[in-house]
């Protein structure tokens, strides 16, 4: 079976700055791939290009969903269409809908899988009522799964930091993705929260069968989670391999890991 997501020579220029330089990458169904590299390497830019928030200067992005058959070209699609196709993401700087409740944040994720319109909303047609009920039920179930069950009606802005990060994941899961993109999900978390996150990500993969591409600086997390690691620097891929291979790669050690980190990690 071929890969789920294929990225072919992706380039992204910001004026004179080449943020992504002929990047090739693929993710198989159910795989956990980590993207690491120093700050400014272009990792977030890469996510932005994948999700349609940035239009790549050159290159191709294709998605093949198992069971759905055809090969979908993702570049050039607006962000909401990309999400419909099955890519969902979280943000490096948390971007929740701060003045909506926790449950409503997740309900927004259901938007692209539902279709009640203005008339359904005003006249509360049977179809719209049933759909609304399903949105609530599904969203609540996701929150329970992610251990956010006690926060349903709290405003997202009032959540503790770790819970906000998990809520971003919950919201992304509500869109029913085939591939989940996590941008530094452990940033700012304490060791206990990071351990819970580790468990959560594995659970998402095993229970929901969702492939995961994550950007992360916490090497312990990256090494324990990933099937494969991709290392970026200056917009280029400088190495790719299993955690063991990456740990001993001299190029990666000089560019990013540093001697002692490579030994301890």
């Amino acid at each position, binding site marked *: 079976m071929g890969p789920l997501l294929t990225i072919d020579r992706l380039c992204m220029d910001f004026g004179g700055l080449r943020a992504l330089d002929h990047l090739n990458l693929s993710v198989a169904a159910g795989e956990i791939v980590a993207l690491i590299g120093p700050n400014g390497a272009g990792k977030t830019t890469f996510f932005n290009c994948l999700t349609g928030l940035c239009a790549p200067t050159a290159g191709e992005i294709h998605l093949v969903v198992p069971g759905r058959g055809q090969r979908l070209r993702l570049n050039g699609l607006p962000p909401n269409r990309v999400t419909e196709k099955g890519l969902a993401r979280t943000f490096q700087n948390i*971007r929740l*809908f*701060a003045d909506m409740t926790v449950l409503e944040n997740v309900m927004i994720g259901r938007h692209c899988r539902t279709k*009640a319109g203005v008339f359904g909303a005003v006249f509360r047609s049977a179809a719209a009522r049933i759909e609304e009920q399903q949105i609530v039920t599904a969203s*609540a179930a996701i929150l329970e799964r992610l251990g956010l069950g006690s926060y349903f*009606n709290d405003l997202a802005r009032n959540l503790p930091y770790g819970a906000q990060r998990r809520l971003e994941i919950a919201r992304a899961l509500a869109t029913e993705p085939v591939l989940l993109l996590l941008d530094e999900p452990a940033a700012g978390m304490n060791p206990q929260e990071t351990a819970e996150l580790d468990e959560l990500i594995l659970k998402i993969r095993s229970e929901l069968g969702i492939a995961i591409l994550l950007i992360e600086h916490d090497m312990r997390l990256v090494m324990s989670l990933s099937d494969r690691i991709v290392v970026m620097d200056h917009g280029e891929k400088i190495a790719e391999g299993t955690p063991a291979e990456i740990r001993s790669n001299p190029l990666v050690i000089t560019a990013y890991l540093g001697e002692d980190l490579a030994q301890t990690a």
Partner: protein
Amino acid sequence: MTDAGKESGGMTTARAVRRSLLVSLWFMFLTLPILVIRVNPVAQEIVWRWRNLFLIGVGSFVLSLVGQFLTHRQTRRTPSLTPGRLAIFRQRCMREPQIYVPFLLCAVLTTLLFPWFFSTYQTNIMTTALMYVVLGLGLNIVVGLAGLLDLGYVAFYAVGAYSYALLNHHFGLGFWAALPIGAGLAALFGILLGFPVLRLRGDYLAIVTLGFGEIIRLILENWNEFSFGPSGIANIPRPGFFGLDLSLAGATVYLYYLMIGLVLFTIFVVNRLQNSRIGRAWIALREDELACQAMGIDKTRTKLTAFALGATWAGMVGVIFAAKTTFINPPSFTFLESAMILAIVVLGGMGSIAGVVIAALVLILLPEYLRAFAEYRMLLFGAVLVIMMIFRPQGLISSARRAYKFMPVPVAAGRNKRHGTAADH
């Protein structure tokens, strides 16, 4: 209080007095040419009205001092996590039937019997206020829910009014036929405005919508063959009552009840919308446009629906306005109207239906009942607005999100998994 505390208190007082002095000097300077110097062209002399200068100086000094004292007290109060006394009182009012039922009954009776106890003049003012309630609720969709700052809302009001006036003038169309047409045309114009501003946000959006409002007004003013220019359109018929021709007083009462009906209808629709899939998408768009798109919401569609649905209400009220005044011309649709409606939304509390209703009533009725203060009424009105915004920046009633109730449902594997069910409240 310790010595240090006393000292710092004394220092802030000195600073407050100094600031108030500066404020009063500044005001005296600003108002000098208007309120103090008067040129009498007949006698060819300049009259210096020093008394005014003195009054302004003292007045602004005292007001500034009071203002500083109040803001100081407000900032010093430690923000507590428990809801304020007002919030608790409000919750109690909503929960306990022995409080809200009599209150509600009173409100309903007053609204229903209003035209019988008050003069035609008063009823007319009340009808106008109700029109602004609907306008406020309409703009609230665009500004309060979707977060799109629209300064040209009056354009849709004009579209509604002119639809009825022109359709009636040329084709003899009646009020009831014109009402949906006016609403539809306004929605169309909403989409027309929406397209070019899809990419704009914040200040840029405000400027373009402002321009749009002015363009519509200028077209109406200058395209004589189409809109009869500044002279406007007269003899627009009032709404008929099952073919009956009503007297002026009768028509006023009829319009009053019509507006009550429209207000209720608007509240019903907007309330349902804001807790629906569409309404949530609007709010998400307001909260974070980028994240909203990334979560699969079609930005284009969501924005256009907001513009169209917001404009619809302005179109309807426009038709009613034309029918009420029986004469319309472009000066009724200046930027000042847009600003007024926006003030209603902001003052009431963005996204809050109850807030907008109250703010519309206050803002429209207040200047009417301040007429006793003659030429100072607009000054007082402005002062009320400024003070409101200083002490309640979130508006009269800040919007609250809907809470969903959940019933725990035991699930296999011994874990108490909760199962969500939406409960109406």
